[in-house]
């Protein structure tokens, strides 16, 4: 038991070192003030111990100057920590532009991953080092939380929403993946590993399983199976708007509003088609609630992302250029 007894977690992501640096600063501040209070209490308790039972010390009522000092100094320190922490928080929230996407679905009690190339995993997640990875996450049931201590990152995974977060692994290795939000009986069994690999090894691993085709290809298959294609005709001549070149671009709604077609918008349009009606179209689409799984929806999204305009850029580039940075672009059912 004693041979495996770490006191500090491994640093394995680009932000881990920065979080730890702030953590050490906080430890220094906390130790200083704890030491100061302990010292004051101990010294006063000994130095001014009662020497005679009828001893009456002189009162002192207080000092405005001292009160101001011990209000201002802690305030200054607290605001320093706030500023430092806030700038790092922004950095953690901003997904780098060149991030690769991985789709995550949590359910009681497992993690399901899909790589755009088509590989699917349960509880183990393979990623390359040296490349930012954006996670697009949702839950099939209750709230879970995706937590990798070695990466110092955590994000709750909610049903009915896409939460986005990212990390960039720096060291190949196998790291704990925990569910951090209590999710029911086997909560402590909802664990897995993130396996960070050299990019070459990762490519080899990706190539190992190509059975079902890419996510977009699977999504395309679903698109035909569910009959979406009968109305959403690529050239725009159908009863419903074309989806070519849709992703990441603004959509004009019948209410006069404009929304950006992100993952949350597409998900909502599949499950609650009448929530946002595209301008000049009729609300004729039926809901697909219950007919397509969360993973299926993610495949459909990957398919829509892959539908670039014919004369435009090459397929696949529309996807990552998502307009909204930050951790919470997705608030679908609001």
């Amino acid at each position, binding site marked *: 038991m004693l041979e495996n007894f770490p006191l500090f977690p491994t640093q394995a992501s680009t932000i881990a070192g920065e979080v730890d640096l702030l953590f050490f600063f906080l430890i220094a501040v*906390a130790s200083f003030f704890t030491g100061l209070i302990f010292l004051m209490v101990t010294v006063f308790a000994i130095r001014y111990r009662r020497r005679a039972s009828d001893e009456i010390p002189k009162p002192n009522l207080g000092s405005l100057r001292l009160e101001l000092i011990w209000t201002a100094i802690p305030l200054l320190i607290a605001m320093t920590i706030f500023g430092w922490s806030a700038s790092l928080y922004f950095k953690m929230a901003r997904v780098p532009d060149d991030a690769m996407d991985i789709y995550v679905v949590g359910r009681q009690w497992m993690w399901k991953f899909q790589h755009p190339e088509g590989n699917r995993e349960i509880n183990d997640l393979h990623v390359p080092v040296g490349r930012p990875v954006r996670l697009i996450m949702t839950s099939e049931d209750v709230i879970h939380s995706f937590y990798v201590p070695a990466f110092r990152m955590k994000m709750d995974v909610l049903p009915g929403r896409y939460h986005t977060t990212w990390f960039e692994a720096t060291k190949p290795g196998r790291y704990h993946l925990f569910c951090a939000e209590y999710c029911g009986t086997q909560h402590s069994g909802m664990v897995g590993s993130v396996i960070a690999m050299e990019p070459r090894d990762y490519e080899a691993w990706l190539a190992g399983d190509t059975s079902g085709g890419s996510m977009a290809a699977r999504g395309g298959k679903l698109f035909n199976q569910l009959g979406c294609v009968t109305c959403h005709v690529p050239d725009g001549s159908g009863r419903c708007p074309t989806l070519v070149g849709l992703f990441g671009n603004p959509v004009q709604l019948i209410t006069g509003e404009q929304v950006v077609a992100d993952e949350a918008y597409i998900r909502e349009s599949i499950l609650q088609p009448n929530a946002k009606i595209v301008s000049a179209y009729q609300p004729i689409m039926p809901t697909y609630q219950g007919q397509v799984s969360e993973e299926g929806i993610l495949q459909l999204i990957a398919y829509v992302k892959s539908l670039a305009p014919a004369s435009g850029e090459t397929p696949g580039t529309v996807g990552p250029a998502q307009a909204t940075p930050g951790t919470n672009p997705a608030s679908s059912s609001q």
Partner: protein
Amino acid sequence: MSTQIEPRKVETELVGTPAPNYLTNGFGLKSWLLTIDHKRIAILYLVSITAMFFLGGLFALLIRLELLTPQGDLMEAEMYNRMFTMHGIVMIFFFLIPSVPAVLGNFLVPMMIGARDLAFPRINLLSWYIFVIGAIITLSAVILGGVDTGWTFYAPFSTTYSNSNVALAAVGVFITGFSSILTGLNFVVTIHKMRAPGMTWFRLPLFIWSHYATSLIMILGTPVLAIAIVLVAMDRLFRFGIFDPALGGDPLLFQHLFWYYSHPAVYIMILPSMGVVSELVTCFSRKRIFGYTFVAFSSLAIAVYGFLVWGHHMFTSGQSIYAGLLFSVLSFLVAIPSAIKVFNWSATMYKGSISYETPMLYAFGFIGLFTIGGLTGLFLAATSVDVHVHDTYFVVAHFHYIMVGGAIMGFLGGLHFWWPKITGRLFPEAWGKFAVLMVFAGFNLTFFPQFVLGYLGMPRRYHAYPDEYQVLNVMSTAGASILGVGYLIPMVYFLWSLRYGALAGPNPWGAKGLEWTTPSPPPTENFDETPIVTEEAYAYSKEEPEIVGGKQSTRASLR
């Protein structure tokens, strides 16, 4: 409830005492269960919450035993989840929230301000009955198989997915909330309207200020919890779908409503203990409090700021990062009034006449542990560090330092301090000191390793965990057993003292304050005649005050 047992003991022990007092005023069960004497109601509360404390402690013991080994081998995951849920519900709603206010506050608020009773004695008794009914309903949920949602009742797990007695436990917590509201209401009215002649606001003991602040939170916060809990029950029983995304609801709304009460609830637990510590530090230093107005207003500041920081429980929940920053900066601000209090307590000891009786040792313990608890709160207010430690043992360690290290140390310190007043008997001092040391050492051994565990990444509410966390968990469990013994010792000698303790006399500590001017135990009417207050609180010296530092006393400027 076990309420019938202890009062009967109390009454037999004190039959021999000559002066008639509140304990000799009726001996039958009816004289207790229908009493409207705030002091007797305090005893009823003391017995009930002590029972709940040991029940919650039993759950804690089973949790710590399970965590001795990485595999979940002592009990099934299902049972473990029920254990930590019930530990949280019992300790928070049925012990910590009522602890200091309902026992010491009930007993002392009227006595400290020179009143005969609280403003609404019958409502006071009603609040105890509501508490007992809530407790019985929640405990019946335990007996029927327990609850497994965690004390936080997060939706949609609690509304849709849990197969346990959520609705019943929720109804129990809902009902108990009203007891808290009524107590708060009673205190506010009493403090406003029933102060003795000459007892101006700035002559009030700081215990009263802290209870006033606490009462405001109870009155304003508890209804929001009640709403949140009713909505959970409605979702569960009638599929309202308020929090269920499948029905168009929003699970984050629940978290907002829940923490809107439950963060201020932390201040319901800690503020009254801070009031106790102000009384202890002054008495055992024989000094007026340093910076009275700052200590008094910091209580109010904590109560007000406390309502604006709930979102710091949600930094990883997906709330907007801008909201996160706002809650972060407000959380840093709420640390300041706490720091002011700690500095003023320390400064009060400067050039004092300090003695080390048991209650003062609890005050030392409170200051030390609360300081650590408060400073580790800064780690959690810092958004980017919180992302890593949120929902890990770091948070568990932090809030136990506040609630156990702070609130319970304050409660025990206060109970020791006023025990001679409440019962007329002294407890054995040597055993008292021994117990404090056990509690202090056991507490640190239990919870300090959990900070390390948390930063290593061990999530909370885990029934089984990776092997490398075992050593620290073993340390924690070892500490918990010492802590448990430390809590049992006072229980034993308090009961012992009821029969064998030396008679206390009206003022065994040489303390100031109106409650010490009346016999121990006090007469039913508290005072033979209404006291007239002519001096400041903590007037341990009649000499002219020495003014240190600033040119004018801030205290004097407010007179």
